[in-house]
């Protein structure tokens, strides 16, 4: 009797444990998992009005969270927005995504071939992902403070601002910050050294780590988002940052009406290109709705409205005519051809190299 009750309770527990979401054949529902603040206010309404598909929209704020959910399996999402490198690349290798049926994406023809070519580094032959928003990694700085501290005539166009100890010594007092991501700092350090920034040799990794370690004593902090506010408030004066975030800092400084003027550069040695993509998880419950959604998003009117809202460039050529002129002419959002030609994607790496990279980064940060 006692035994039977215990068995019943355990069985009940297990059934709750394993209850998978019911999967009816393509009901009119779509589960989208996107970055926070990364869509236009009316995008989803328009999609539902047009297709009758109800969108469950969920947001996250780090690639790691997305990766963990997808790796665990059964995430229940139909469309997710992984960053191309290293996340999309690893996830494609791990077989986490469905192939995209291009016959269902007629708007594919509008995509910029140059962006697709870079994205193919992460997703060979663009089989699994469609580019969403694009932004390089660069340097944002407080124009007045940096110009006052550096010798007149110093060119503000290079990674040396971030890695040259002579420059850092002068800027230390007013605050220099790094992104807390080895896949951003080490390629930038390699570009500064004149080496191939996509190199995966352990010697190059050691060289990059040495440069970063030498810069470490001059840094105020290493963090991947704090710099946005601090740069806008004038608390720091030079930040390694994602251009999209730096633009946000520049806008906030303007809105606050404080006497803070922010300059942004994409260094001439070449910079990491961040491409956020749209992909369909292998176990997505509504893959056909997902294809409809992706095709809808890359329609010029829709994607340009998103660009106008969030301030990131998109990869749809016919959409440019509909982008606000102040965004389209901004050289850090839509960079000129010469700058774009030097942008690169960090290629996927072996687990051994990744472990070495993580370890080298901890050593840069803690000295251990």
């Amino acid at each position, binding site marked *: 009797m006692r035994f039977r009750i215990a068995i019943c309770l355990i069985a009940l527990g297990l059934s709750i444990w394993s209850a998978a979401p019911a999967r009816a054949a393509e009901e009119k529902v779509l589960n989208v998992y996107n970055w926070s603040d990364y869509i236009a206010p009316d995008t989803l309404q328009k999609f539902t009005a047009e297709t009758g598909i109800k969108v469950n929209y969920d947001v996250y704020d780090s690639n790691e969270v997305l990766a963990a959910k997808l790796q665990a399996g059964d995430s229940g999402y139909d469309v997710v927005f992984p960053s191309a490198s290293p996340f999309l690349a690893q996830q494609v290798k791990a077989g*986490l995504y469905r192939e995209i049926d291009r016959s269902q994406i007629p708007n594919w023809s509008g995509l910029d071939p140059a962006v697709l070519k870079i994205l193919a580094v992460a997703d060979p032959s663009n089989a699994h992902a469609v580019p969403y928003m694009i932004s390089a990694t660069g340097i944002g700085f407080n124009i007045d403070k940096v110009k006052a501290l550096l010798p007149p005539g110093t060119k503000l166009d290079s990674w040396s601002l971030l890695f040259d100890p002579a420059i850092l010594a002068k800027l230390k007092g007013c605050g220099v910050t790094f992104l*807390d991501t080895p896949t951003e700092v080490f390629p930038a350090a390699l570009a500064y050294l004149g080496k191939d920034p996509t190199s995966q040799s352990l010697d190059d990794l050691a060289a990059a780590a040495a440069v970063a370690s030498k810069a470490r004593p001059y840094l105020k902090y290493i963090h991947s988002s704090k710099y946005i506010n601090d740069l806008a408030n004038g608390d720091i004066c030079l930040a390694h940052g994602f251009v999209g975030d730096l633009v946000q800092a520049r806008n906030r400084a303007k809105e606050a009406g404080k006497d803070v003027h922010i300059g942004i550069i994409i260094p001439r040695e070449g910079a990491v290109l961040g491409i956020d993509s749209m992909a369909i998880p292998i176990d997505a419950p509504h893959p056909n709705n997902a294809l409809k959604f992706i095709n809808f998003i890359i329609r010029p009117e829709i994607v340009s409205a998103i660009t106008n809202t969030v301030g990131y460039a998109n990869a749809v050529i016919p959409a440019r005519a509909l982008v606000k002129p102040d965004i389209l002419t901004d050289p850090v959002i839509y960079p000129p051809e010469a700058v774009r030609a030097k942008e690169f994607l960090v290629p996927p790496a072996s*687990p051994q190299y990744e472990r070495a990279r993580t*370890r080298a*980064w901890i050593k840069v940060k803690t000295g251990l």
Partner: protein
Amino acid sequence: MTAIKVESASRRSSPGGRDQGRKGPAIGRRLPGGRFLVGLPPYLWLGLFFALPFLIVLKISLAETQIGIPPYKPLLDWAQAGVLELRLNLGNYRTLFSDDLYVIAYLNSLKIAAVSTVLCLLVGYPMAYGIARSSDRHRNALLMLVVLPFWTSFLIRVYAWMGILKTEGLLNAFLLWIGVILQPLQILETDLAVYIGIVYSYLPFMVLPLYATLEKMDRSLLEAAADLGCRPFRAFLSVTLPLSIPGMVAGSMLVFIPAVGEFVIPDLLGGPDTLMIAKILWSEFFDNRDWPVASAIAVAMLVALVAPIMIFQHFQRRATE
């Protein structure tokens, strides 16, 4: 005099207790399985929310990594038809000792947790003592004030500390205003900020058990001490303090054990060089996507925490005897 009276009173009450104890089985005989059912929920709870997750983590810690869903290989595999192969990969545990990083980070976590616990005790004891000795009218209000911060999210409170501690934050602005300092102090992103965050966040866990022991304490013992000519401070040292040891131990364990594995506070308030084991675990899990090694760290941490938990239980048992 008073002390003796108390003792005899307690002796008188004990036979009654035994009597009730005798009634228990009688009810049990009438309702078969009743006692078993009452005892079941705690075990079920422990089984479902402690043992089962722990066994899953233990299983992953013995697996090999793979690129796929899930990111580790199964332990049991049908190698050939009819041959079930069990592969246990102990390499993940060896990794923990192949690099000083893990041990140093763990020791650093222990240090930060120990210092925070002592600080919590120093701050929390006077608070608990004050509340226990306050009038009935004030006591509930004071207890409420200790518990009140729990009404807002822990995360929001830690973010609020970022606003207080940063260079142009409230604390620096105040210190500059009263002229104690001329330059703002760098507190945020240092170990000091981590200590402040942990002491603030875990203080209620120290105050409440301390309060419970101090409030339960028989005040007539202090009267007896006074009758025998003991000064209040001496009475505190030789009566109150020893009697409150169970509360101190309970509070210290409640602070120390979660503080060792604390992730949010060092991540938000600490600097990039604040080395704690939870941050290393995060990096194994998310940067290296090495679930087996991350699980091995978790298991190792748990094993290393079993000792303090045993001490805690030992003291608790002694306190209830």
